[in-house]
């Protein structure tokens, strides 16, 4: 079952010669229980896209269906299934954290008592209990974002649409957010749609990711397959403790194909070759002078750069 089905979504900002295509013919199918990411640079049209998914912005053309309901014709239906975390929290800034969560839960239809219980649970889950009575506007940037994220969890919606939920969060808080999302997906099949700048976040938590550039989806797949589609090469980093044994044929071959920075060698190799080389090094005599090694797949950042570059080339062609 699909959560969102989006077809030909186009949104033009402005008119005449100043018109900008913020979204350009976007098609997306987002399954129930998926953690779906939207990755792209500033100005790529990510926020425009999620605001349309929430019925907050009328598309210039195209269709959006949420569990089969037509969001373009009936924008108010989005709020009945999806919770939204926007980038600005001004509406909540003067509220104490606990009350902000409780109020949001009540606005999503919970009774006062149920909203209070939900608030307590969420505060505990995100480690916000100590801040319950502090006003959101007076918290530090990261705490403030986490408190606002907590309001999106209130009322247990089957879909969460989150615009950069972890911006400014420290690693501990970021993991608390990821765990909270994962728990809801596992226990209730909650769909998460997440706008992100953060490559680590994209690689850690997303089932699939749509890469947005200049309003278009230039790639949409699992992070693993996206990375594989760019290159099957992996990065092998070697750090030598002493002089590398260059009379060893594998070491000699690696040296030829590495960028050498002092005692650090960085080579890009097909995954199979890298595994073989590493196996040879760690079981042979070279291991005695090998201080450290890492084997890493390309990051989504590499993917974005590769795909983005290609898209720009196409436009100039």
């Amino acid at each position, binding site marked *: 079952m699909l959560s969102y089905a989006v077809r030909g979504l186009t949104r033009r900002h402005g008119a005449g010669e100043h018109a900008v295509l913020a979204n350009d013919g976007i098609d997306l199918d987002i399954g129930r229980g998926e953690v779906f990411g939207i990755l792209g640079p500033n100005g790529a049209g990510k926020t425009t896209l999620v605001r349309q998914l929430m019925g907050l912005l009328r598309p210039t053309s195209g269709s959006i269906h949420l569990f089969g309901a037509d969001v373009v014709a009936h*924008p108010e239906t989005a709020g009945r299934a999806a919770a939204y975390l*926007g980038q600005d929290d001004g509406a909540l800034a003067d509220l104490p954290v606990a009350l902000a969560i409780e109020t949001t839960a009540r606005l999503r239809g919970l009774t006062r008592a149920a909203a209070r219980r939900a608030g307590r649970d969420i505060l505990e889950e995100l480690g916000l209990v100590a801040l319950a009575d502090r006003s959101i506007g007076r918290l530090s940037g990261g705490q403030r974002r986490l408190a606002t994220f907590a309001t999106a969890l209130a009322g247990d919606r089957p879909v969460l649409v989150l615009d950069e939920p972890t911006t400014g969060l420290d690693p501990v808080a970021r993991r608390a957010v990821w765990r909270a999302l994962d728990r809801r997906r596992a226990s209730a099949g909650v769909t998460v749609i997440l706008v992100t700048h953060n490559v680590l976040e994209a690689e850690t938590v997303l089932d699939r990711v749509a890469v947005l550039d200049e309003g278009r989806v230039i790639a949409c797949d699992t992070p693993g*397959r996206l990375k*594989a589609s760019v290159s099957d090469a992996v990065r092998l980093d070697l750090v030598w403790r002493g002089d590398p044994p260059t009379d060893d044929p594998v070491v000699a071959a690696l040296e030829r194909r590495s960028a050498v920075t002092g005692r650090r060698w960085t080579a890009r190799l097909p995954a199979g*070759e890298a595994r073989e080389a590493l196996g040879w090094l760690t079981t042979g005599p070279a291991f005695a002078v090998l201080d450290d090694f890492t084997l890493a797949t390309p990051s989504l950042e590499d993917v974005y750069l590769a795909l983005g570059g290609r898209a720009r080339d196409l436009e100039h062609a």
Partner: protein
Amino acid sequence: MSAVGPLAAVPGPIIARAAADGADEASGPAVGAGPAVVLGRRTAFGPALAAVYTGQLARARVARIPLLFVAAFQSVGILLLLRGVVDTGSETTREQVVAGASVLVVAFVALNLLAQRFGALRAAGALDYYLSLPVPRSAVVLGTAGSYATFAVPGTIVTAVFGALLYDLPLDRLWMLAPVLVLAGASLAGLGAAIGLLAPKPELATVGGQLGMSVVLFLGIIPADRLPVVVRAVRAAVPSTYAVDALADSFHRHVHWWGVVVDLLVCAAVAVVSLAVAAAALRRAGRA
């Protein structure tokens, strides 16, 4: 040496474009199992109104208390200033100065501050919070307007009591503050909300709110019989006038209650229209 075969035997560009792993697999969405999702219900008007109102009231504890005092200080200052200027021998003048200064507190908080608040929320995109919730827009507008009208209550009472004592007016008529506060609060907050939500820029919302307050200041406090005929016509067109007149009339020794009721009905009508306009503006703000 078979272990190093590929590495030694295949020199050249290491980074080769290769088939994606599992390229034959479908790359569509993971389809979750489980029962069909039924869209949740819209939150009913009453509970939504109560949640918005109590949420907004809590803001007073956090941020608005200084502003309540500013509003009262301003009106008390005006009362003291005019005490030495106006003809305190005229009962009508005294009644209107006190009533005008009291309604000015409502205008400051409910009209001016609310216009600024909605203007700022709209400019920042912060209205998305409300617009993405399954609540009637009218509940958001009415709940917020109601809370701002409530913020005006302490300042208005302080001003009215101080004014009645300073200008030697009967304190036993101050119960009339209750209906005046409710209806003047609703109408002025409705206007403030409409200005804030309709103004294309937050600066214009601020100017609109200030202007509305200035109108109340000049046309509400200055006794009507001192105004030129043209300005008196403008006075009759301003909603706050009816709140001022209702309160001023109730200080009379012989109150014309029907006149007071009519004044209050005008306030109620303005409240209904302006709140409806504000709710429509909020719906529109969400679909720009």
